[in-house]
């Protein structure tokens, strides 16, 4: 990505500023809208608890999609095991807080560390694999770690772990939001360093990258560890926020597919693509999942949407911002021609 491509035209910039202003207003006004004290004082509510929960979930998926983007989008290694980092982060906080009595803040510092160390251990052998083989091997790691956790008594086995409930929508919203900002900043910084250029070189042609002096093993493992640390941090926050974790809610492979979708639909390999994808897709999912009997139709809708996005806008919606492409029939025809038989 060159400097010229990064410069946004004013039309797009204005809309980005507008969206950012709304988001910022929400963030700043949030304390007025949700804390119980404000409710008791009769202050007007801008949002309700449900929306707070949704906003926190959106922020969480921004972290997960951005984390996946670092290894999947920048480095080109489509990991289906990132959910293992999320689960490990969650269980680290769970065990330290519940079983060992650590304060949450201290446990939260440990979560990304544990996830990163795990990424280092599995990354060294697995990052030698490519394409489908890497995807499956990481998928296997995700399934296997979840299953082991599900069978170990000290980790609550199939019952799961209950954490002391902390009643504060605000704390978790801001924690998640802060982590999301951290994830985006990390991606932004990586893309502006030698490290980032190394990762892009590996994505485009690993042999060539090695030839020009990129230490590919170190770069790949480091990217995997950074992705793991961010994902693990989100997992740690989720554990305390949800105050209940088990195999199903922190090791769900569907979550992993979802973070990939978000990054890809938004625009993999870009800084803001995963953010756009996470916000759009999570809001669609939450809206579709509204009704009870409508759940089936929402799944069909999601599947069709996914197929349409993959077929017609494979470079992600971020492609339309920045003036590189315009949303038009010609664009659809062109992308179709590029990929179809």
């Amino acid at each position, binding site marked *: 990505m060159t400097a010229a491509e990064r410069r946004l035209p004013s039309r797009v910039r204005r809309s980005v500023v507008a969206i950012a202003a709304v988001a910022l207003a929400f963030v700043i006004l949030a304390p007025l809208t949700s804390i119980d004290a404000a409710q008791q004082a009769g202050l007007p509510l801008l949002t309700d608890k449900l929306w707070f929960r949704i906003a926190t979930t959106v922020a969480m998926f921004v972290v997960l999609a951005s984390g996946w983007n670092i290894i999947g989008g920048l480095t080109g290694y489509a990991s289906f095991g990132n959910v293992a980092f999320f689960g490990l982060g969650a269980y680290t906080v769970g065990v330290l807080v519940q079983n060992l009595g650590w304060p949450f803040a201290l446990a939260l510092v440990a979560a990304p560390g544990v996830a990163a160390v795990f990424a280092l251990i599995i990354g060294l052998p697995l990052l030698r694999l490519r*394409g489908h083989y890497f995807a499956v091997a990481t998928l296997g790691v995700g399934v296997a770690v979840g299953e082991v956790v599900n*069978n170990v008594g000290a980790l609550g086995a199939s019952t799961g772990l209950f954490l002391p409930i902390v009643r504060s929508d605000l704390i978790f919203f801001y924690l998640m939001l802060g982590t999301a900002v951290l994830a985006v900043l990390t991606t932004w910084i990586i893309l502006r360093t030698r490290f980032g250029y190394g990762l892009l070189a590996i994505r485009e042609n690993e042999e060539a990258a090695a030839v020009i002096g990129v230490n590919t093993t170190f770069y790949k493992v480091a990217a995997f560890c950074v992705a793991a640390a961010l994902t693990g941090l989100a997992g740690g926050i989720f554990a305390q926020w949800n105050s209940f974790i088990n195999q199903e809610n922190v090791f769900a492979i569907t979550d992993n597919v979802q973070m990939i979708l978000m990054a890809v639909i938004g625009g993999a390999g870009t800084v803001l693509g995963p953010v756009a994808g996470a916000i759009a897709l999570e809001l669609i999912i939450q809206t579709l999942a509204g009704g009870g009997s409508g759940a089936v139709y929402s799944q069909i809708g999601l599947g069709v949407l996914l*197929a349409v996005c993959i077929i017609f806008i494979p470079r992600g919606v971020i492609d339309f911002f920045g003036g590189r492409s315009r949303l038009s029939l010609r664009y659809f025809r062109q992308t179709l021609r590029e990929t179809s038989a």
Partner: protein
Amino acid sequence: MSQFTQQVILGLLLGGVYVAVALGFSLVWGILNIVNLAHGALVIVGAYITWDLFTRLHIDPFLSLPVDALALFVIGYALQRGVINRVIRAPLLFTFLLTFGINLVIVSLLLLLFTADFRSVTPSYSGSGLQLGSITIPYIRLGGLLVALLLAGVLWAILNRTRVGAAILAVGADRDAAQLVGVDLRHIYALTFAIGAAFAGVAGGIISTFQSITPTAGDPYTLQAFAVVILGGLGRVSATVAGGLAFGLIEVLGQSTPGLGSGYANAIAFVVLVMVLIVRPRGLLGRLA
């Protein structure tokens, strides 16, 4: 000792089911370079057809297998020709995600058509088996293994003894060269996927005879087909057969190992899988090219 023999036999019988599930998956992966995440859903479509024919018309499950194959062949051809062909030249991840979306749609449609209730096919002989000394071999499992081996033979014959098979192999080896010598790529892609889907349908028919089916029952089979192909290696029918039988054995023997239980079935399978990948990234019997 006879306990161990019984376990080995059960493992091989279970492996037969994995062979049936993995044959079509392996064909589509090897030729089209698509990891079909909707494979399990196609398997379950076959299972529902068998169930429907059994409950409404009382047709023996093994007799309805050709119907499964035919129906899934048509569905598979339409899916590839109409949808997947559109992204066949896109990066791996895109076909991966597209098939995940197709999986979501099929599972949801099954949910609408058949609800989430458990359905089972119970022919009169479903409880009985062949008794050899202290060892029991359930008839339906034996039938499943035989059908799986028959399928493997049919696939081998199609690929190596017919003109269409030669075209399919040519497309798998080099798409552009195949097109140059006059192979209609779109048709061969669709045909390959259709054959894979037809095999999935037959596998589903077999599965319905020993397991209760629900719309989501196929998802584990996609993962297991994956594992089988990795274990055996891509590109040969015999490798898939060996991989499937080995995977069934590993699963049954692993679960009966002291200290491990049925809760570790997937973990054992995937630890083995990851180790195979690390030692031999192309599978135990896979071709190097």
